[in-house]
């Protein structure tokens, strides 16, 4: 991990690194806050994996290994910013205040979304890879027209970086100097496809060819991710235009619970990355530099456990929606085929709902 290009403020052992361009601005409490976020989101993620194994979720997309990338980015956001996630941004959703049970509605297959995106200023999950990057640019164009000091942020993966939509989003962001930050989590895999299939050179270089800054940050270093993201957002909000951030990290788990990564990658690679664990790294810093006590760490673990229990209860309580709800919100205004469908379903006795 000795990489000239990589912005790093913390070694895998949790020791400070000096960087000419970035320095950490966070105090001990704030860093402890990031640690807490990461522990909680990891715990919730593991609970979700169990829930899936137990047949309570249709699918789960784990984020183990990417907690620093997501929490660092998520905490750098200001309340009025607006974020555009994929299906894997549970850490960002957490930072935006989305209730964990809302995040799981998609995976329990009771909703195609799950939360109120306007309320949390965090868009619905986007499954068609790359689409959301254009939404973020359009939203940012709206910010410009409103004269607001806000930014949009789009998340996507190394795999999605090959999609035309993402690249068109770069063209547009540059053309309109839009207040948008592109946050690419290069977790080195797109299902079974290594990121080297998408690009032979580091992905952040893409931005330069479109005329805006790109930066590669150690995605397992929450302090570095926080500072790099904050700088990019600050710049976007005051007319500095777009930035592409490549958070260089690793997907420790499977692509989703449907996936079997042993078919395409070797354990040794995973082991190497386990030693770069983002949570342990900041924990080591907190223990050494800020003398955080074991009991404080234990408290966080207990809090996370309690939340996981709560999540489990909430998930189990999510029942099958009334089939008639499929007609809700298909359109904003009345539509004859919606009325016809509702009538048909009631006539068939599928739902007892009324028109």
């Amino acid at each position, binding site marked *: 991990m000795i990489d000239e290009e990589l912005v790093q403020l913390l070694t895998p052992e949790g020791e400070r690194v000096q960087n000419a361009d970035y320095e950490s601005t966070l105090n001990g409490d704030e860093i402890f806050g990031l640690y807490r976020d990461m522990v909680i989101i990891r715990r919730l993620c593991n609970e979700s994996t169990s829930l899936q194994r137990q047949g309570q979720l249709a699918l789960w997309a784990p984020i183990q290994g990417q907690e620093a990338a997501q929490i660092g980015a998520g905490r750098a956001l200001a309340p009025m910013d607006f974020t555009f996630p994929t299906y894997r941004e549970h850490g960002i959703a957490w930072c935006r205040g989305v209730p964990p049970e809302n995040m799981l509605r998609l995976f329990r297959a009771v909703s195609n979304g799950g939360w109120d995106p306007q309320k949390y200023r965090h868009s619905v999950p986007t499954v068609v890879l790359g*689409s959301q990057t*254009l939404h973020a640019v*359009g939203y940012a164009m709206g910010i410009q*027209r409103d004269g607001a000091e806000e930014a*949009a942020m789009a998340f996507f993966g190394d795999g999605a970086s090959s999609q035309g939509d993402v690249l068109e989003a770069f063209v547009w962001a540059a053309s309109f100097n839009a207040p948008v930050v592109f946050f690419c989590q290069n977790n080195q895999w797109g299902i079974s496809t290594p990121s080297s299939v998408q690009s032979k050179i580091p992905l952040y270089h893409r931005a330069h060819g479109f005329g805006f800054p790109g930066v590669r940050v150690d995605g397992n270093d929450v302090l570095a991710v926080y500072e790099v993201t904050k700088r990019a957002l600050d710049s976007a909000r005051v007319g500095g235009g777009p930035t592409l951030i490549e958070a260089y990290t690793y997907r420790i788990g499977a692509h989703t619970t449907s996936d079997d990564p042993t078919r395409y990658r070797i354990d040794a690679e995973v082991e190497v990355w386990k030693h770069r664990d983002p949570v342990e790294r900041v924990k080591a810093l907190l223990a050494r530099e800020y003398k955080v006590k074991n009991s404080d760490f234990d408290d966080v673990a207990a809090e996370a456990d309690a939340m996981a229990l709560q999540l489990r209860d909430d998930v189990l309580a999510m029942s099958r929606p009334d089939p008639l709800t499929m007609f809700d*919100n298909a359109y*904003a*205004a009345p539509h004859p085929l919606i009325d016809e469908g509702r009538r048909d379903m009631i006539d068939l006795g599928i739902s007892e709902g009324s028109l």
Partner: protein
Amino acid sequence: MATTTMTMAKALNEGLRKALDANPKVLLMGEDIGRLGGVFRITDGLQKDFGEDRVIDSPLAESAIVGTAVGLAIRGYRAVCEIQFDGFVYPAFDQIVSQVAKLHKRSDGAYKMAMVIRIPFQGGIGAIEHHSESPEPYFAQTAGLRVVSCSTPNDAYWMIQQSVAHDDPIIFCEPKSRYWEKGEVDLEGPPSGLFDAVVRREGTDVTLIGYGASMKTALRAAETAQAEGVSIEVIDARSIAPLDLGVMAKSVEKTGRLVIVQESPHTASVGSEIVAELTQRCFYSLRAPGVRVSGYHVPYPPTRIEEDYRPTVDRILDAVDRVMGFES
């Protein structure tokens, strides 16, 4: 009734101007729509009057035009996207089908996907390939979208305003070959609801349904038929999806015969839908099966022979003969 005469192009231009005036959240976006006023001049003068922030000359990428319109919609704007020609809407197909059509649902109603995607469609202008297509069946099939088409300047003027004001995403199909034809525009109020079919000519023997550029051909066919003693009722569907089947069924119950005219190939087309629905609704009234007069099942041909691809008066009359003579 305060009416004035103008071309469909001008009517669209005036309608867009009214929409921009009425709501500061309305934006226009597309390739060459600003300084140039669009290749058909539909947005002529609008950038000058409303500024570059509201009438946006975009980079050249249709997926991005529609995809950023989605983001603008999330922010509360209403974008009217111009697709330069029908054949160039397909790069945006994914955004239209998977995002525009589905985000109101996916967000449980939190996002309004209020936007209009304007597409100059159908043939008849002697252009090169990809400039004469009829993509409306694709959008009609897609749940979450609405599809409308204007066939007169009056409808153009009002339907574009109604579309911009509507909260669902609307694919607005403009019959480009009719842009330069003039008609009366009533400035005082819309002639009908955006999703209403209208009877353009009353008749008793055959119901002839079409939309867009086909309406003129249909009306001409009706005139010719009249001379031959066949009375055709001509209906302008106006709304392609949803279809105003009530108006259509009422007519078929009266005439007992149905012909549909459209420029797209007939397989899984809007015409197929009209036949299927009206056969169900008017089974006992129909004295002959509904017949579709469509473009042929080939890529749009070189335009020196396009008039033999597009439904002609002759082909419509041939279909009329077939439904009239069916019982014999």
